[in-house]
């Protein structure tokens, strides 16, 4: 017998995580050890023999796993697995597997299951109980250096200037002048045949006294050195320096997809965060700041394509926002004069938490050292209006909820801010609780730290060990739950309903932010960044180490998925949203996301136990 006998089974398994990690021999022996059963809806449940645990691999049909209390744990379709927890733990299966649709199931016997675990670490890891509990092991979290690992698609011109091979040299020169570019791609029958650059016009036309009415192919570089669109910027740089050229056509199977020049690469470097922030600090007026801020979306795309950690991306983008805000304050003070008193520019919400991403709106306020008189009020109104307008023009749109320093409601003295927070904490009505997710994640972007501390210390004093407030906040944060996982083309919610896509922000990241916030406020922790909050909570033993690491990993993983999804949407010209569609998710990522959701769910359950015990 060789592989061709079991071909349909081998083919099916070798595309599945974790079977795809097995070598051919191991996979084949695995296939050969299978038995195949068919389960009919008429028998209601899959009979799980406690004495003979095995790995069940769903080939067709649909199944549902419920725990001993009848709570839905998972819904399974083609390519999903069940039965492995008892294989790993040796404990009797307590879950029940209901048959929703008749289906074919492969059974892998325990001896082979254990053998395959020794053959492949990934196979072992996948099924190991520890896998579901701990996400931190993937190389995917490793941040890489920016220029070397980003893809050329982020920098290249996607609609390159082209000209037909039959055109004349003068035609080409005029086209280049009109489009203000230094090169043109020469096309014959939709295929790239050559390139004509400024240098060619100088060396091959002018210096040789060639007639401009001659056909272009006499002057162009034929079959130029080109690069594929999925190459790295690093590779493009290498090619250019190797061949001493400045223009690289981007070609996929003969067709010109774009062009990348040494200037593009230089520009790409300038959108590195440090250079960008330096540039912001150098600008002398609003129009030039607006110009510089146009590089921010590019910076985000660069960071995403370089596979940087989501947490770092958030912090980098937020430091750019902070720098822009500070620069706007300084520039406007140059016009308006010195401030009549000390003040802090407060950032709330995502800017406060340092997890800003694409298309963030403004959430800010102004904290004044003391009660302003009419003149001071006029000064700060003018200042905040100018800064908010400037931010808006730089791409940070006005807050739809009007939580901005230019709104007199959120431009107050220290005493009044304290009063407002005091009221939210002591009468936590629904509206106050809604404000919490924005206002309690606050940070000072500009102004004396001592002034800001005067507010934050007071707020944390109020919230610390304030059971009624914390229970209210917890209740509010539990109104939304993470999904259970995926089933076929759908996202499976905890109540068993199926929806088309998942909102990674509101059903994922925001829930972890909520959990970290409640714990942080309960313990009087000053950090507002979610990852930092979790770290401090772990150090102070408020959350145990394992749960804290899991929560931090889930937070990073979900945020990472959200960013890479947005990067995918952006590069494919789709509207940028927080929605992830199951069809865009690989089978490995499905399992990983499912584990991350489980961590969020466990976090919510733990929070509820701790904060809502007596209510």
């Amino acid at each position, binding site marked *: 017998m060789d592989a061709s006998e079991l*071909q349909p089974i081998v083919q099916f398994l070798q595309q599945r995580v974790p079977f795809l990690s097995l070598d051919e021999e191991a996979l084949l022996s695995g296939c050969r050890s299978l038995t195949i059963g*068919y389960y*009919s809806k*008429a028998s209601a449940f899959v009979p799980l023999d406690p004495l003979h645990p095995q790995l069940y691999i769903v080939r067709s049909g649909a199944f549902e796993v419920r725990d001993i209390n009848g709570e839905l744990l998972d819904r399974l379709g083609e390519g999903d697995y069940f039965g492995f927890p008892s294989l790993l733990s040796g404990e009797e299966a307590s879950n029940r597997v209901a048959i929703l649709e008749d289906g074919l199931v492969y059974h892998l016997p325990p001896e082979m299951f254990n053998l395959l675990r020794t053959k492949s670490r990934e196979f072992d890891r996948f099924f190991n109980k520890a896998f579901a509990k701990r996400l931190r092991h993937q190389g995917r979290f490793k941040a890489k250096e920016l220029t070397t690992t980003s893809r050329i698609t982020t920098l290249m011109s996607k609609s390159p200037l082209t000209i037909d091979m039959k055109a004349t040299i003068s035609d080409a020169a005029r086209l280049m002048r009109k489009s203000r570019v230094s090169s043109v791609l020469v096309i014959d029958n939709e295929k790239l045949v050559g390139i004509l650059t400024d240098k060619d016009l100088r060396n091959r036309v002018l210096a040789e006294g060639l007639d401009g009415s001659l056909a272009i192919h006499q002057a162009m570089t034929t079959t130029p050195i080109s690069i594929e669109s999925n190459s790295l910027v690093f590779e493009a740089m290498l090619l250019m320096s190797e061949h001493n050229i400045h223009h690289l056509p981007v070609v996929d199977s003969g067709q010109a997809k774009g062009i990348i020049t040494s200037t593009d690469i230089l520009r790409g470097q300038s959108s590195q965060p440090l250079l960008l922030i330096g540039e912001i600090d150098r600008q002398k007026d609003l129009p030039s700041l607006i110009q510089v801020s146009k590089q921010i979306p590019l910076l985000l795309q660069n960071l995403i394509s370089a596979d940087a950690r989501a947490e770092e991306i958030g912090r980098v983008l937020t430091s750019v926002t902070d720098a822009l805000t500070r620069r706007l304050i300084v520039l406007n003070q140059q016009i308006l004069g010195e401030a009549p008193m000390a003040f802090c520019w407060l950032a709330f919400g995502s800017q406060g938490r340092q997890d800003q991403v694409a298309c963030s709106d403004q959430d800010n306020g102004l904290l004044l050292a003391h009660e302003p008189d009419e003149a001071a009020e006029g000064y700060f109104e003018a200042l905040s209006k100018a800064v908010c307008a400037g931010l808006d023009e730089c791409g940070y749109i006005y807050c739809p909820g009007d939580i901005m320093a230019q709104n007199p409601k959120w431009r107050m003295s220290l005493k009044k801010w304290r009063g407002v927070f005091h009221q939210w904490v002591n009468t936590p009505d629904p509206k106050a609780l809604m404000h919490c997710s924005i206002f309690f994640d606050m940070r000072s972007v500009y102004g004396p730290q001592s002034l800001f501390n005067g507010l934050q210390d007071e707020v944390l004093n109020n919230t610390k060990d304030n059971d009624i407030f914390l229970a209210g906040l917890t209740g509010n944060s539990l109104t939304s739950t993470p999904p259970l996982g995926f089933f076929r083309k759908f996202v499976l919610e905890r109540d068993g309903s199926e929806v088309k896509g998942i909102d990674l922000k509101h059903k994922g990241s925001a829930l972890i932010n909520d959990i970290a916030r409640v714990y942080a406020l309960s313990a009087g922790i000053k950090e507002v960044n979610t990852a930092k909050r979790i770290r401090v909570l772990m150090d102070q033993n408020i959350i145990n180490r394992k749960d804290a690491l899991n929560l931090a990993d889930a937070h990073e993983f979900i945020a990472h998925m959200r960013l890479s999804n947005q990067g995918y949407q952006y590069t494919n010209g789709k509207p940028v949203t927080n929605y992830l569609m199951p069809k865009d998710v690989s089978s490995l990522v499905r399992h990983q996301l499912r584990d991350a959701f489980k961590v969020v769910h466990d976090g919510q359950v733990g929070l509820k136990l701790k904060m809502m015990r007596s209510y």
Partner: protein
Amino acid sequence: MKRFYLKNQLRLKSFRAADDVITDYYRALACAISKPLVDIPLMAFDLEMTGLNAQFDQILSIGMVPIQNGMLQLKDADYRLVSIEGSVGDSAAIHGIVDGQLESAISAKEAMHWFLEKTQGHVLIAHHAPLDLCFLKAEIFRCFGEKMTFVSIDTMSLERARILRQHEVIKEGALRLDACRSRYGLPIYAAHNAAVDALSCGELLLAQMASIAGTEELTLSDLLR
């Protein structure tokens, strides 16, 4: 009744069999079919032939996979190529077997010996079983001079009976293996050779048994139509 008659017939034939392997075959089969259905070993199999006429077309390959306790046992799945006289000719296009591959083939007599040993004590399962059995009988008669009696379940006639029971019209092609499988939500396999088709047929029988078992207690006689 049918089973009783069959058992006697097998016993009688075992005394007069021309070869030991055939004597053993009848004895084991008579013993197997006296068991309750769940305990009877089944063997899903498929043949590929050079044509459809058992008189002058030849067997090219044989695939089989056993069913025990209601489960297909892949570890005992097996496959043989059979050497033929002349060339594979036109049917190579269908089966994907080319003359060169036939080098690993065994002779028709070896193949029949192997088949009888492998399927000893098993009730045979095939899709449109009469055709495959016809080829086996002709070949075994040529090799051993024995007019074989097999006990077999035909998944195609099970399916025909099921459709007719539901008072539905049988459409053209509705009884083909893949068409039957898709009615039970079974996956369609791209490859077709004797081994894969034996597997396909075995899976179909499991699905058919599950659907019949849902309504009544199943016996071998129910399946031997």
